[in-house]
């Protein structure tokens, strides 16, 4: 299978099964790009997640990182299209049928099913991140402080995330 086709297959599958947004797909992305395909190392995968935090727009843009690594610009664009287009098409179908769906008892069925599933997937994504982060004392400290600032003081997430990156990076510049 050509690289581009493989990228498309991997990300279409991830995009079409990803309920709950960016965090929810982390375990599957990690499994695919690190363990199954070997496109990235564990460290590179976490770094691509970190870079994704710095970009605006849809979550999951970290997929471009692996796509670029495998096949350059065409690989990155294939990853982007494979993630977004199939679900955008499904959204268009759902939007077109929204009135009928909105009145249907099946809407409650879908919400009662995919709500909990999404919650479980987000928990799995958080678990994937935390198991990596908590193995390092400094990272664990930043995660703990970030959690407290977000939970207790409800600071803007972008502010806390950027501060976490900048302050941890700056610590390496302190002599001694």
């Amino acid at each position, binding site marked *: 299978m050509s690289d581009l086709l493989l990228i498309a297959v991997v990300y279409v599958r991830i995009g079409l099964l990803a309920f709950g947004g960016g965090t929810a797909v982390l375990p599957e992305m990690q499994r695919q790009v690190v363990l199954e395909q070997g496109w990235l190392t564990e460290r590179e995968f976490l770094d691509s997640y970190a870079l994704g*935090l710095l970009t605006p727009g849809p979550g999951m843009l970290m997929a471009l990182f692996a796509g670029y690594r495998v096949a350059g610009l065409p690989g990155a664009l294939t990853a982007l299209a494979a993630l*977004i287009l199939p679900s955008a098409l499904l959204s268009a179908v759902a939007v077109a049928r929204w009135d009928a769906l909105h009145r249907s008892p099946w809407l409650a069925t879908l919400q009662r099913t995919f709500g909990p599933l999404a919650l479980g997937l987000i928990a799995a994504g*958080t678990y994937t991140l935390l198991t990596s982060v908590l193995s390092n004392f400094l990272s664990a400290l930043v995660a703990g402080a970030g959690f407290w600032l977000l939970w207790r003081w409800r600071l803007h997430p972008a502010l806390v995330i950027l*501060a*976490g990156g900048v302050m941890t990076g700056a610590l390496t510049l302190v002599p001694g």
Partner: protein
Amino acid sequence: MPEASRRVPLAELFLVFAAVGLTSLGGRLAYYHDALVAKRRWLTDQEFLDGSALSNFVPGPIFANFTVYAARRLGGWRAVAPGIVLCALPGAVAMLLLTIAYDSGLSRAPAVAAGLGGLTAAGAAFSAVTWLRLAIANPLGRSGAVLATLAFLGLGPLHLSLIVVVPPLALIGIWINRPRPGRTP
């Protein structure tokens, strides 16, 4: 869905999509609420909630799914494709540039490597807080809790594939929650 209740001039709509695509760090729907509901009143709160619900139960990036809903609602079908491009392109370009910078050797600088670790750690904290808030705001019944726990165990500690975990659990959930006479929706 009926034809958009209030059509917005396409140029104006595309400008807003481009601005949201450019500034929405983290891709949260709150940016859309601010741009389309709070600032311009192009969508009502109820329309926003409908779009949010739809975006959540369709798989894929929630932000892009909501873009389809808002573009259709405010500009008709012809606004959908440009809307997706405008919301995703700035982030995609930024991600590409960051990837190229990373590959150029920047990631080997100790401060950059440590900074990326700090970003990941703070991102993990944000994910944990988001999950906790969602779990508190949406208490699950017994079957919902079982579905959520199985999805967590399968994808998390057991490292199973999405395709092994999600379709069977979705089918079980749909069967358990299927409409039945006498059951309130």
